[in-house]
């Protein structure tokens, strides 16, 4: 990294603010999507985990999903477009619950969404209380713009990994690129190491 000083720039910083490098604090909730918001109804919603063999390992409809143990989650979120939002409140089902009892040799996961979006993650990043399928934001049903009725929530990675309108996970032996990763974004996406783009 170079250290070119921007003549006359002092910036705006806040004491005690703990943000990943290159991020700024946002109080609204911006939307980032590559296309129109797909209409997803809970009446027909499904969440499927597909094993690396291609077999369906588990499947829930909305009613079955809501009958699973629910968790309240308070986390900071970080978007690759530079905004961070602190202390957001969600409700959802832990991926530990969803992956429980599924025997697999997979090291990676492709999350799949209604509308065709995909994103790849290492399977260990979805375990250990680090990831959820969330359906409530700040006490309200998750708005369609923000991925409702349900989205992945993986707050320790940049937010494009938290796939909106998620409908399933494909377990994979070998890593493959999802939608933004194929277009040059980082495979892992750790905001604290500023892994925005391939090669970061």
């Amino acid at each position, binding site marked *: 990294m170079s250290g070119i*000083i*921007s003549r006359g720039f002092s*910036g705006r910083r806040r004491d005690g603010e703990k943000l990943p490098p290159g991020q700024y604090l*946002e109080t609204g909730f911006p*939307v980032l999507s590559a296309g*129109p918001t797909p209409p997803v109804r809970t009446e027909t919603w499904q969440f499927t985990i597909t094993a690396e063999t291609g077999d369906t390992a588990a499947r829930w409809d909305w009613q079955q999903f809501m009958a699973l143990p629910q968790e309240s989650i308070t986390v900071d979120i970080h978007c690759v477009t530079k905004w961070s939002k602190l202390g957001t409140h969600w409700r959802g089902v832990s991926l530990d619950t969803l992956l429980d009892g599924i025997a697999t040799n997979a090291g990676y996961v492709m999350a799949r969404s209604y509308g065709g979006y995909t994103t790849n993650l290492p399977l260990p990043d979805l375990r250990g209380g680090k990831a959820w399928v969330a359906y409530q934001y700040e006490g309200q049903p998750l708005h369609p713009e923000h991925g409702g009725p349900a989205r992945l929530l993986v707050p320790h990675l940049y937010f494009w990994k938290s796939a909106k309108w998620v409908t399933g996970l494909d377990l994979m032996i070998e890593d493959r690129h999802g939608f933004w990763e194929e*277009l040059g974004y980082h495979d892992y996406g750790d905001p604290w190491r500023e892994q925005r*783009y391939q090669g970061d």
Partner: protein
Amino acid sequence: MARAAVPGRLNWLVATVTATRDETATARTLVLDVPGWPGHRAGQHVDVKLTAEDGYSAQRSYSIASAPDGQRLELTVQRIGDGEVSPYLTGVLAPGDPLELRGPIGGWFVWDPLSTAPVLLMAGGSGVVPLMSIVRANTKKVPVRLIYSLRSPADILYAPELSERARVSPLDLTYLYTQAAPAGQPTGRISANVVASAAWPPDGKPAIFVCGPSGFVETAADLLVAGGHDPASVKTERFGPTGT
């Protein structure tokens, strides 16, 4: 889907401001010379980094307004009153100053200049910036329709250039003024009627690019899908400091 032109690391480059141009009272174009610039495609953006003397730095993304042109790049920056970066870029930065940036970024919201499909561009406010790159890159003169929603005539970016291009090339302009329209013209917003009358019909399989604040993009994209356009043909880019 084409792969983005970002094979290796996206390195920070030091650009030099060669000129600035005020587009409106609150928007300024920065003309940059960027040694090492790998080239871009119409619709892409860059990350800009400012660094204070004590090492504090801030980054933001800005759309590229210019057509691909060697190591010359134009960014148009809309000043946000309480912003941290845009007041500096539109008020302090001057010709001769260095500016750190990296890119190009965004391999989805890009127009393929080899495509012959008609192009539909829908802009909300300064969302017109990456769409202007598409207009300027259209050297083969593919038919383009631009539906441009903005508060008032004083907010039009690139007004003289758009008028001239509309005169000499197959570019149709539809301005929607949400707050103040020129005398004799009604104010209006994006609506099913506007889409039906000013957009290409779906059977012409247009390439569609929608950019603006989230509310505008959400409304426009929903209207397009309701009007029979294939959701997969609608590429969107949302911006704005305010959430929804």
